[in-house]
């Protein structure tokens, strides 16, 4: 989920800060408190849960409202894909190598999406450095997952670094004043 496009009401900000802190706590637990194999399972469950929740939410929006919307089918495809991805994660979680590859793909996709935003931002002269930093971060994490997929402990560590990175970005976005293009 794009950390920027989130609820920015007061309650939303508090919620996002708390969620960010929770994610940091989960990452710390996985690295320092859990045995490696359990941490690997926890990692896969977290990824699957995130994807599944996102997919279900998107599908619910499609079924209740967006199926009547021009272009609404795109939400159907996204929802189904997200659920498929969640299922795949649960299937492969016993295979460390596949889990590493899968994780790297998710980081590469996140990085690629950020790069697209960099391209758009540069094209229209809007701030792009933050997106570029995030893109580089995700791509590096993707490479790290591929390289380190043989080592379960390092794989979990890389994932937790990504978790903390995302959590910090979420907290930062929740707390910083933001100008939004709002026209009505």
């Amino acid at each position, binding site marked *: 989920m794009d950390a920027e496009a989130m609820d920015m009401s*007061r309650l939303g900000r508090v919620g996002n800060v708390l969620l960010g802190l929770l994610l940091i706590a989960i990452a710390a637990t996985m690295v320092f408190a859990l045995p490696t194999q359990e941490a690997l399972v926890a990692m896969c469950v977290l990824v699957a849960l995130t994807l599944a929740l996102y997919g279900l939410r998107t599908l619910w929006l499609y079924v209740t409202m967006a199926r009547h919307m021009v272009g609404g089918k795109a939400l159907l495809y996204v929802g189904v894909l997200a659920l498929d991805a969640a299922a795949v994660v649960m299937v492969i979680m016993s295979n460390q190598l596949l889990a590493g590859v899968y994780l790297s793909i998710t980081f590469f996709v996140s990085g690629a999406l950020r790069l697209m935003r960099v391209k758009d931002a540069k094209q229209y002269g809007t701030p792009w450095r933050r997106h570029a930093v995030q893109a580089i971060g995700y791509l590096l994490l993707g490479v790290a997952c591929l390289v380190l997929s043989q080592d379960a402990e390092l794989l979990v560590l890389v994932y937790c670094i990504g978790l903390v990175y995302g959590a910090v970005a979420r907290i930062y976005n929740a707390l910083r004043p933001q100008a939004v293009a709002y026209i009505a």
Partner: protein
Amino acid sequence: MQADFHYYATYCAASLAGYSPEESYEICYSAQLADWFTKTLLAGIGGPVEAATTQLQAEIVESRSDIVGRQATTRTWASFHFLPRDLYAPVSKGNKRYKDKYRLICGPNGTLVADTVELAKGGTTQAVGVAMHVLADTWAHMYFAGTPSLVINNTSGGMVEIVHEGDKVTERPIRFMHNPSAPDDFNAGVYVNTPFHPSENIFLNLGHGRAGHLPDLSFARYRYMPAWGDYEEVTKDNPSDYWHAFCQMVYAMRYLRGDVSAFELETYDTQAVAPWEREIKDILEVRRLEAGSCEAWRELGTRIVGQGLEAFDKSTYVDEYKGAPAGGKGDTFLGRYAQASLAHKSMVTSRIIQSGNTLAGRSLANNAGRHGLGGGAQAQEPHSGGQDGCGGDGHE
């Protein structure tokens, strides 16, 4: 619409309808004030925050994102800037929630416009100004709804601008960017809009954000697929729409003055406007920033009214309100404006809830005394026609 139309054009229209220069000023000031009368302003002067006619960006972002917050947002935006065209529109698809949102789509010549004008009959110049703002926006903001909704207010990729240059008509794709501080580039066809967000109720999907400022640019002509349109394109011709808005305002104000016996929909006083038709249409067609359009309308207004018009200043009547005694706030300009705003918001919200649509929640009782306005001028009661009473949600 922007200040060029709400303020300067309304000044011209009021004069053509027969109002004196002083009355025309009060009307156009009131029309423009609808874009500035926020909770923040009202809280700052100790006024009734329920009378707010719009929201600052910060207010929207900070508002509750639950159903209560959405209802408050919808009450304000649907009442003053996106007046629903047909609360009983036949909708053959979707669940109730979808149908309710569909029925909030704004458009001109709906029964609510007639109700809006009727409500201002016999009222203050402030009430007339509020009505003219609402009427004008039904033309500019048609096809969008004053409630956060992805499935209604989204626009598909591929908006096309239709550019008239003399006899030559060209079409070019519109490119959107999301930098709120960057100006629109009319020549390159690059405009600012809100980014796509796949969340039904997020504030980014309120109103015409996905079309950027295009609905508010009098010269813009464009084609696109609205999210609710079953893959059919709509074409928006702002010069024509704004012309109709202007002529309808003149007609409405002649009715409010008593020159015309009834206000009928789809009626435009082109006769009263005829001597200025060419000049008005020329102003509407020129591709320029708001400041340039304001200047053109201001200059025309000086010739039509015979008096110049100073630039709009939202704080013009603040001292009067603040200095008024507790029981006399209602006799001030802003006090009368607040009463007009409350009456209108109450009327629209009542109509919406009467139609079985709960998206705007319930209206607070339209009671000037309840809002601490006192004074002699009382807001007119809405034509409630058997409503179940004002439940007073207290969530403005």
